[in-house]
């Protein structure tokens, strides 16, 4: 149990979490300890990441593009060998016994190709056979997953005729085949429209209700907030925060955000203890264009890194 113990002593793990995990040290689905990945050109993609996930949890790894999320997940899925550190999945050492570990996982890579000349159904049925399902079970499991993901009408279509979003859903479905106990999904909803994204969230929730543990990466704040039990924020290869949404929000000691334009027209952000305090600030500084909102994950990120969270869904923030 060396790996979980070390994970608990890491500074970047929330203290609330340490207590919770320490009380059930054997109940970890995934335990990562001091994971370091340095590429040959010297780039440090992951710098001492430690975290643990309990069975049945959804853990979202959040961070802007290039933060090191995919590198982290590729090490979990055995695709990339870590420079140092340890990964344990349901009692299996992922680095030493990659093939056994992979049997426990359903994986959606961020970028993977499908076979243009195969139909949607053929993809599911062939890949179900790889996961040890019999021919009949593969057929019924494929139908079930296509129904869940809204792909049943496309079953007989060749993949080359499908949209990017439909292809993405196939990749998610392939990970679900065979009901693996651990799902590792790298940006599963990137490129999906909002309705499809919600559908995928529901599919993931259903898989978790069936007993799966899920680790997913995302750069959508909303996805991390609405879908996950625990959130890890990665910035420049480091896990800078890890915990439940409430635990993370507790890090923003002033829980209201005042956004406004200063006299030179620049966007500014200020955190206040209460709504009334924010209003007093507006009156004192005679602000005409402003908004007051509850602090969010975005603010946690801002508070921890000193930089605004930048992705296609994030609003522009400038430090005051």
């Amino acid at each position, binding site marked *: 149990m060396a790996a979980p113990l070390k994970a608990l002593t890491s500074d970047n793990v929330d203290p609330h979490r340490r207590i919770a995990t320490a009380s059930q040290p054997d109940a970890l689905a995934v335990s990562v300890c001091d994971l370091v990945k340095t590429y040959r050109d010297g780039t440090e993609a992951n710098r001492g990441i430690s975290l643990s996930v309990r069975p049945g949890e959804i853990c979202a790894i959040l961070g802007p593009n290039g933060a090191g999320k995919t590198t982290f997940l590729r090490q979990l899925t055995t695709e*990339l*060998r870590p420079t140092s550190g340890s990964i344990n999945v349901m009692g299996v050492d992922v680095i030493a016994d990659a093939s056994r570990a992979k049997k426990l996982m359903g994986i959606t890579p961020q970028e993977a190709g499908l076979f243009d000349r195969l139909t949607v159904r053929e993809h599911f049925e062939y890949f179900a056979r*790889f*996961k040890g399902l019999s021919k009949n079970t593969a057929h019924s499991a494929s139908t079930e997953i296509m129904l869940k993901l809204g792909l049943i009408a496309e079953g007989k279509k060749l993949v080359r005729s499908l949209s990017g979003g439909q292809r993405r859903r196939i990749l998610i479905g392939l990970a679900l085949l065979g009901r693996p106990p651990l799902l590792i999904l790298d940006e599963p909803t990137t490129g999906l429209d909002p309705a499809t994204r919600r559908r995928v969230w529901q599919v993931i929730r259903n898989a978790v209700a069936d007993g799966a543990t899920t680790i997913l990466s995302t750069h959508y704040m909303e996805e991390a907030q609405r879908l996950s039990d625990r959130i890890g924020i990665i910035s420049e290869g480091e896990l800078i925060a890890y915990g439940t949404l409430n635990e993370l929000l507790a890090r923003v000691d002033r829980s209201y955000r005042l956004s406004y334009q200063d006299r030179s027209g620049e966007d500014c952000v200020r955190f206040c203890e209460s709504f009334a305090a924010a209003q007093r600030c507006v009156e004192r500084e005679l602000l005409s264009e402003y908004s007051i909102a509850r602090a969010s994950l975005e603010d946690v990120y801002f508070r921890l890194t000193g930089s605004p969270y930048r992705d296609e869904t994030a609003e522009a923030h400038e430090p005051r």
Partner: protein
Amino acid sequence: MNRVNDIAGVFRIQLASMRREIGPFLLAAIVFPSAMYLFANAVSGAEAPQNRLRFLAGSIVFSLSLTSISWLGYLLLENRFTGRLKLFATLPIAPSSYVFGVLIFALAQAALGTTTLMLVGRVFGAQVRPNFSLLIVVVFLTILSLCGLGVIIAARARSFSEGSLWTDTLGAGLVLLAPIYYAPEMMPRGLRVFAQLLPTSFAARALQTTLTGGHAIGVELFGLSVTAVITLALGFHLMKWREE
């Protein structure tokens, strides 16, 4: 049993893909080699009858080379550079299952191509009396050696276009460099020794012998076996399922 299931799965995927796009296979395995057989017969004029078996053996090697290096190498490159290999890598299957599935697919293609070309040869005047058991061994070893080259190219290429250029060049080049459609004496002396050691040369000589019912092909079988072991071992070694 799992291993067999995985190999069969890879084979099924390649076969289903090919069924929907059979044109390139027919061109590489049957149309071009048949045309080469007829062309070689036509240009050799009065000497054609005694050379027909050599031309037929050469055309079968041409078919095997185009099928294994050009077409199969292209599929492997496509799998790697379009991310399909990554999709296989997410599954609990061994890299060797993937390679063996592809190899069996190549053997099935070779069986179809060779049989068709023997029929073409017969129709166009070649007196074929094959030693079937030896013929199967020769085709098997030829496919293994040439597929090994395809795997190496697919594993080492830095881009899809670079890899495609290599598979196309080697697929046709190894046949043209070997004394298949012409006598070895017609080659420059320095090149002759090199050409004799090519797997396509071993294959052409072995096929010519087996097509007449002969069996004195020990050296050729040895050469093909050594090439197969070297190229496949190197191909397996270079094909990374897991990045460093």
